[in-house]
């Protein structure tokens, strides 16, 4: 119990809370997208993040837009179920909402390890029979896959869309990134998809170095990867056109204004289909 919370017995609904002192990536991203689920510490982090990368709000928006296009693309390829790893705080355009607009029967299992993201997802999905949230660490595929099977929502004999959007830059090299992806890949049948996006130093090295520095003081330090390293994560998948590219260049939709400079998009993104 935190100090100063007063009359304890009468407010028995108030147990120890989340740690609001250390800012988190989930809440930072929420703030950049204009959401309201963040603490002062997160907003302070966001301001430093914006100093290092002034284009950060646009990058968050572009990343979210990529998520949407990737989900719709996988639906076009016949995928009807998704495992969204590092799903974040629910905000505008969540995977189940997007998927259901074209495939009303789509099922989604969200995974995040952050308290606030999980709490809000739980609330949102409380009465939803076709979507749920698991609080797990995505770098522990055995635990995640076990829990995902436990939900009964996903049929592992049919294609599953693996979403690792805006999360892989939080996976440090010592956690064996290639092994993590491989474990998920081996659990799903051919025809399943992988959508992955992550920060890179290839595009704006100086800004990226600044971001890494800023994020050292959060719960989620960051590890940018080169184009080659990111492409290698798709081992065992056929990468669909146009390959691994800056966010706005991945299958832009008809009529999209070309106001976003790919060179400042900070993140590479791609989609692959399991061979």
């Amino acid at each position: 119990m935190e100090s100063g919370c007063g009359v304890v017995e009468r407010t028995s609904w108030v147990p120890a809370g989340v740690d609001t002192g250390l800012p988190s990536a989930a809440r930072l991203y929420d703030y950049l997208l204009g959401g309201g689920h963040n603490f002062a510490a997160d907003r302070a982090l966001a301001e430093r993040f914006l100093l290092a990368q002034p284009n950060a709000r646009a990058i968050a928006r572009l990343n979210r837009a990529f998520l949407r296009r990737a989900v719709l693309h996988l639906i076009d390829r016949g995928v009807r179920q998704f495992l969204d790893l590092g799903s974040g705080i629910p905000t505008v355009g969540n995977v189940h909402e997007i998927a259901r607009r074209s495939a009303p029967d789509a099922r989604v299992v969200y995974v995040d390890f952050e308290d606030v993201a999980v709490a809000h997802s739980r609330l949102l999905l409380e009465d939803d029979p076709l979507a749920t949230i698991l609080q797990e660490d995505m770098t522990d595929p055995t635990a995640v896959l076990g829990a995902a099977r436990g939900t009964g929502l996903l049929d592992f004999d049919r294609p599953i869309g693996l979403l690792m959007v805006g999360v892989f830059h939080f996976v440090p090299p010592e956690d064996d990134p290639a092994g993590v992806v491989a474990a998920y890949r081996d659990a799903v049948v051919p025809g399943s998809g992988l959508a992955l996006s992550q920060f890179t130093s290839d595009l704006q090295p100086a800004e990226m170095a600044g971001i890494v520095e800023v994020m050292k003081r959060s719960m989620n330090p960051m590890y940018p990867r080169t184009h080659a390293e990111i492409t290698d994560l798709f081992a065992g998948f056929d990468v669909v056109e146009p390959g691994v590219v800056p966010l706005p260049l991945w299958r832009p939709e008809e009529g999209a204004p070309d106001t976003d400079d790919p060179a400042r998009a900070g993140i590479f993104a791609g989609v692959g289909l399991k061979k």
Partner: protein
Amino acid sequence: MAQPPARPRRRELAREWMTAVYPTAYVPLSPVEIERFLLDLVDVIADAVQAEPFTAAPIAEVGQRLVRNHFTGPETLQRTVEVLGRALLFTPELSDVPSLPEKVVAILGALSTGFATAMRLDAFDRQEEVKAALLAAKQRAERVLEVSEARFREVFTTSAFGIVVTDLDGVCVEANEALGEMVGVPFTELPGRRLVDLFHPADADALATRYHPTGVRRGERFREQRRLLRDDGEPVWVHLAVSLLHDADGAPAFHVTMVEDVSELHLLQKNLDHQLLHDSLTGLSNRQRFGSRLEAMHRKSHRGITLYHLDLDAFSVVNIGMGHAVGDRLLREVGRRLEVVVAGERALVARVAGDEFAIVVDNGPATPRVPEMVERINHALAEPMDCGTALSASIGVVDRPGADWDVDELLRAATATLHRAKAHGKRQWLPYDRHEDRRSRAWLARAARMPGALADAELEVEYRPVADFGSGRVHGRVARLRWDELGHGDCVELAEANGWSLVLGQWALREAAAAAAGWSAGVLHFVLSPMQSRDEDLVGTVMRVLDETALPGTGLRIHLDTRAMLAAGGDNAQVLRDNGIPIGLAGFNGGQAELSLLDELAADVVLLAPAAVRRLADRPGSLPHRAIGELVRSVREFGAAVCVPDLDTPALADWWREVGVDGAFGAFAGPAVPGYEL
């Protein structure tokens, strides 16, 4: 209904709109879907513009639909207003609509208000839903106690709204960080304090009764707008939503209060939503609320009311010189002092505009007479503020008006009287004078008629020759406005006073550029008013006009107002220059700051201030006369041409030629003529 030829233009507009807002907010739709969605809204708007009789009512819905579909970025509304404002005024489909500019203004206003309101309700309702879900969870609690408590804790700590739980004695049991921030007290120190003590004394009593457990029945909530009192004594306007929570046996147990800081919201949506009743800066009533209270007091008064309308003298100097933060502090302090002045009276103080305040006093048997009250006000303001400044005000007074006056009449009379008082200098006050009022009223009525006159083509642009005194650097025509017997200066003054300056300026520039593109009369000089010079969209407007009229940038001299540039920074001038458009500084007096500005901007021309021109010509041989010779020489050596406006006689022109200026315009060089004669 929709005319076929208009479709392509509406599509184009929807596309422009989409392009403008696309980068401002994440909307989970494809560009094509967004465009289609916006096209629907364009239809609503364009139909409303053309509907007879006209009403902006359907437009609020447009703002709401934008919010519902997540077009909610910080810049979304601003860009929307920009795109629509420009397009509606100049779209061919609407060019025949009578009083178009007024309708456009009404429409953009309705859209902004709808948007702002929807934003507020949206955020608030979402939070309330979450809270409701949590409280429901709490009631199922005992089984899954920990989970629901964790959830409550999440919302409690993460919410941008203040949340406070109080027991039935009104003592805080628990408050979140957001509430602590609002009242300026660490949230950990709030438990144990009485909630009503956090409120403004004027609100505390009323709230105490509202919080009574029998005051709110089971499942019921109440909402109100109240003032919290920050630790530093400053009021914060908040929206409250209070619900009563019952324990497992169904007995009342706690109140949960959600608190939304509406003053902060106000700042966010500064130029949009002025519908709230209170001024966020000072916590005083705003104009709207003042109006309704004034009406009630006037109606019920036995001994009659007295209305004071105050304008702080030279307040803009404080704002510019010491910064807005100091200015804001001063305004708050002024509000506080005025409240003290009338503390013993049945009275209301309001901030009705930037540096304008109004007071209404319901006269009682012991109420001081007007001169004494004015004396007290002046005295209160003359006491130096914490930054050392002492203030003064000009005051217009309407004393005991007849019972048949309505509110508009009262407010208008007070304002008109204030204007007259101000004309006498600082620290002046005047009582309302029916005779004087009639004259100035004609002027204001005229100002109010201007938008209509513009729409009905009663305003014209004329062109005066600019005489070249031999240097060959200045020549061409200068555009001037005319409205019946009113000349350029009057038109500009009216437009600046009624806020119509930007629209008028855009219109005149377009007219003039179109005329100049077709003539061989040389360069077009266009002199901007202060407001036009500061317009953030100025460069965009000029570039668009050049584009549409095919007038080359070098065929135009844009003269920006020197003082406006000093106050707002020379960005507009700089960017115009960078775009290859020669610029001038108008209203130039030659002061130190102005010379530095000239140096910094490297303006091509300097247009002397008309007042300076008149003053100098009066006294040949005097020191100013010699000084002007020096000034003209230095400016010309620096590389800028010097030009003189409004010279009436050939004698004056000769005098200036002697001084060595490059050129001049005015009646001496021939009459102003309409564009088609050139």
